[in-house]
């Protein structure tokens, strides 16, 4: 429909086109405006998408990725037994053949390490939570904790890639790219999939652009990385000496000359090019407006904490994420580095929590007070868990934890997710004893909340229909409100 509409419009001359469409139809999906092959007969999938498969609960996602894997045992999954057995060896029957990373594979002992931090019960549901998360503690009743997440990878790169693309290796599209492909965007002046990066002081593990890659989908579905420099989006700002009027004159000139070319060659790509320049022009205004946090009122600044005015911090990115989401960006992916606490965990985790606790809780509360939480799914978590035993030397004040794939905790909020605690691990915090949720199940569930059937959201590539969930995954009903 939009396609037809646009096509019809394109036969008008440029000025009438701009008047009729470019500045007029506010709600039109960016997905189609950006659609690269708007006028050619593309793949079957391209034409079929842009609408959910069934009524969605969530319209947008904000994913607060905690890069490096936060320790579930020091934050969410309270295991007093570990404190009781402090220093004792992990029973082999519990470990039960779990493969180890090269960092602890040579350890002769696996001394159990209870958390250094106090846990308490919060909210009406009396949910257990660490003292490291005082702000999150106030929001617990809105959160859906999954204590029984598990993955297959034991190293960062493959685990992160798995969590974001559904495959440990390979150049697959990431979650955001799939959603951009499946649903398009709600805002014609902003990309459907935005990426915001920040770093803590803890042991960092880096991020990679393949995590927000379009994989085999069109490059239009690639995550657009926002930076905290003067150019919030790459190459967005006009160069010095170019004011808006001059830019407008240049675009008019380009448009007229390109139209001449279209008259001669009839290649629809020429008209698409004209459109894309107009879109770029509008982005130049829309993006800086959105990324300008200086006009946020006092109470909002207070809510997110003073760091939210420091560009490039996790807090600033949370606030920016709220603004982008509010403007209709489909998927906003944050990464916060620094959770990889192989040693010095007590010290490092304090800093990490200070970076993220207030702003994460603020984001949930902010969405809620705007009435947006129902339609916005917030996800918080890392790529795997951490071991219940100590890596390196265990002392009363210090310990480290290695990577642990068998269980970890993430939380979701809003977007049709069900507040409460889902899944359970054993008293050692090592194995899942109830309601395991595999990464594929998690993806299937997230897509379901967005109104998409994970088995139907496919793209044919190299002779095969690919999915975010590969060949597995089931929707976890217990996570859905």
């Amino acid at each position, binding site marked *: 429909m939009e396609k037809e509409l646009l096509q019809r419009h394109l036969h008008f001359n440029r000025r009438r086109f701009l008047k009729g469409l470019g500045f007029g139809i506010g709600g039109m999906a960016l997905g189609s405006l950006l659609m690269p092959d708007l006028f050619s007969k593309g793949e079957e999938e391209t034409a079929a998408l842009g609408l959910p498969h069934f009524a969605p609960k969530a319209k947008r996602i904000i994913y607060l990725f905690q890069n490096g894997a936060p320790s579930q045992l020091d934050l969410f999954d309270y295991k007093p037994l570990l404190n009781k057995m402090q220093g004792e060896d992990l029973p082999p029957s519990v470990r039960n053949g779990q493969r180890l990373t090269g960092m602890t594979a040579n350890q002769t002992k696996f001394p159990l390490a209870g958390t250094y931090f106090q846990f308490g019960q919060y909210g009406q549901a009396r949910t257990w939570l660490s003292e490291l998360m005082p702000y999150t503690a106030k929001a617990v009743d809105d959160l859906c904790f999954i204590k029984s997440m598990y993955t297959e990878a034991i190293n960062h790169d493959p685990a992160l890639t798995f969590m974001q693309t559904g495959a440990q290796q390979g150049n697959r599209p990431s979650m955001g790219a799939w959603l951009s492909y499946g649903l398009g965007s709600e805002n014609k002046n902003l990309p459907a999939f935005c990426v915001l990066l920040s770093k803590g002081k803890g042991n960092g593990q880096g991020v990679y652009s393949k995590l927000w890659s379009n994989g085999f989908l069109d490059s239009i579905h690639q995550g657009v990385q926002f930076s905290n420099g003067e150019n919030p989006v790459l190459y967005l700002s006009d160069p010095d000496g170019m004011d808006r009027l001059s830019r407008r004159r240049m675009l008019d000139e380009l448009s007229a000359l390109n139209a001449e070319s279209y008259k001669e060659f009839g290649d629809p790509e020429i008209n698409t090019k*004209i459109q894309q320049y107009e879109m770029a022009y509008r982005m130049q205004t829309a993006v800086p407006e959105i990324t300008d946090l200086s006009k946020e009122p006092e109470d909002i600044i207070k809510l997110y904490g003073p760091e939210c005015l420091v560009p490039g911090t996790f807090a600033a990115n949370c606030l920016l994420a709220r603004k982008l989401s509010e403007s209709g960006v489909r998927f906003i992916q944050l990464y916060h580095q620094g959770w990889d606490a192989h040693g010095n965990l007590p010290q490092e985790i304090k800093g990490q929590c200070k970076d993220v606790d207030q702003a994460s809780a603020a984001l949930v509360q902010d969405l809620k007070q705007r009435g947006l939480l129902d339609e916005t799914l917030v996800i918080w978590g890392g790529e795997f868990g951490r071991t219940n035993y100590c890596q390196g030397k265990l002392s009363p004040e210090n310990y480290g934890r290695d990577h642990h794939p068998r269980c970890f905790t993430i939380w979701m909020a809003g977007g049709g997710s069900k507040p409460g605690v889902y899944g359970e691990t054993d008293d050692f915090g090592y194995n899942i004893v109830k309601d395991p949720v595999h990464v594929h199940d998690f993806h299937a569930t997230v897509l379901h909340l967005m109104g998409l059937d994970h088995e139907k959201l496919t793209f044919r590539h190299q002779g095969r229909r690919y999915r975010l969930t590969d060949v597995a995954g089931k929707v976890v009903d217990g996570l859905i409100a």
Partner: protein
Amino acid sequence: MTLITGCVITIAACFHSKTDNGRPDTSGDVSYNFDIRPLLSDKCFKCHGPDASHREAHLRLDIADSAYAPLKNTKGAYAIVPGKPEQSELLRRISSPDPSYQMPPTDSHLGALTPQEQRLFEKWISQGARYEKHWAFIPPVKAPLPTPKDARWPLNEIDFFVAHKLEQLDIKPNEEADKERLFKRLSLDLTGLPPTLAQMDAYMADNGKDAYEKQVDALLATPQYGEKMAVHWLDVARYADSYGYQDDNIRTQWPWRDWVIHAFNTNMPYDKFLVGQIAGDMLPNATKEQILATAFFRNHKYTEEGGVVPEEYRIEYLVDKTRTYGKGILGLTVECAQCHDHKYDPFSQKDYYSLLAFFNNTKEIGYEGDVSVSKPAKMPILSFNDSDVHNTLSFINKRDTGAMTVSVMGERDTFRTTYLLSRGRYDAPTDSVRPAAPKAIMSFDTTIFPRNRLGLAKWTVSRTNPLTARVFVNQLWQEFFGRGIVKSAGDFGMQGDLPTNPQLLDWLAVDFMEHGWDIKRLVKQIVTSKTYRQSTRVTPDQKEKDPENAYQSRGPRSRLPAEFVRDLVLSTSGLLVPTIGGPSVKPYQPSGLWESATSGRGVLATYKQDHHDSLYRRGMYTFIKLTVPPPGMGIFDASNRDQCEVRRGRTNTPLQALVMLNDPTVLEAARVLAQRLQAEQTSSDEKITKAFRIILCRKPTATEQKRLTDYYNDELATFKNSPAAAKKTLAVGEYPQQKNIDAVIKAALMRLIDTLYNLEETITKT
């Protein structure tokens, strides 16, 4: 032989690809290869195909004997009874409206067959339900040249096939493109650079019959030809300058990249090119050059993450090598058989590990330590010094005096047994397998081919291998026409697209082999064809009948690949530094990109931009850090080099507009060309024309000239009112400013040129 001829005739009679022509028609003979198997493959093979572990009801439809056999689960019934559609259970099932009976089942999400497709099956069964070997696995033969009605149109063999096809489809081909546009197209296709004004003038002045051919020969002889050809191969070979995982430290594989350029420039035959890359190290008395060629199989990513399990990654590297070989050289998705039998193509999981076994006997290990002990190459390595470079490896652009190392292939002294890995898991070996190439393609006869990588190399370039030549010819066709004769250039298997002109593809493949796998000869054949030389104008009729230009009813029109967008801008401004090869360079890049994503470890944690000449090298030399590839390149659909890629996307996006509008590279080029023109004693009109000719490679029309002159005058007036803006406009790039010239005029000229760079036609092959 008879099979393929039969098949070709069938195609000629009723070839109708679903993808290109909408609905299939059901008149005439039904071809298994071109009509039935695509449907079976798409809708049935998932459960009734080659994969034994997912086979339902013991029914297999990819083999005639099984399809004709009595059904095990339904007494007295047959899936297919040749000649008797009414007795064939398959037809009943695909046409049944009953969801509990219907095939494919609704919960498979494969979708029901359309009535038209059902009729095709009915017809095929009534015609005898004849099965054929997959077209791509039958060795190609040269069909006699067709005889198009318009005998004057064809210039060479390509044109006979194309004209014949167009006549069948009732499409009129285009006239020849105008001289200027054709020359731009040719120059871009052969060198990746637009013609200079001098080249254009010389060509325009040459009215000889062989003027065009002379230019073809001249361009093929330039060293830029090798650079142009190499870019595609670097995608195939997933070439990059860093290790790729996590900390992503620097590596040194660029001497191999220099070898690729050299190989194309010296017109190394494709068979030799492949043998060198697959097994150069195993050739008798292998030279350093031959060993260097094998770096092809070492270009993939290597982890330096602390704590990995070495064997997990060693296997991952073998998987990558096997995938690259399969997709890049054989045009097959062999990796599908890593975890289970291939669902569509006749490769078992055992076939897969037998192929992988060829690569499993090198000295490579899974893990050499983390980033703190990172080296520029990983074992096995090739070392070479200045004296090698002065003597045998003269094509390597080596600058420092120390010894260099490159990761290459090298066999172990003892034989390592390869195991089939259950579900593809490194820690789940089952039966042992011996090295062998997939028999469905061509048997691996050990009396001819030794059971090692060298044997695989020889098998690959055997004259009877049905795929190698076809796949390469198709990749090359794609380079020139923007689309292969087989659109899915990386998948010639059953799920791949069918060739739009199978006779042409086969003729070219055979001809290529018959002439010693001579690449320049093939390139020349293509660019001197009438087909290639057509105008790109699209008529409504062509748009209707050949929207994708799959049948070459017009000349190829497409936006330039990322690297060549940059090259065009640099070369037309005069900034391009034409040095070939050497270490990759770091030109302007928006600040903070590497820094915001890094773990902080390794020498690539921060982007240290280069200066002077290194700012103006061709796009193919821009440093590729895999975890944060050059942003402008990705925006223009360059491969991220994460894996073997044989076909790039081609999008048209607002982010591309932003790059062209605001990238300092483009702005600096505009400024430098402006100051060059300003130094000439010419009128502003002449300057505008000249800039236009340099950038667009043609003379402007009267309308264009007038528009641009008006625009220039407007900008001039604006800058006159605001000299400060002029000064700011000019302050871009590190290339020296020319002093003592009027800044206002220069800024207006720069803006005009900037506008020309942003025209759609500028970065488009037209």
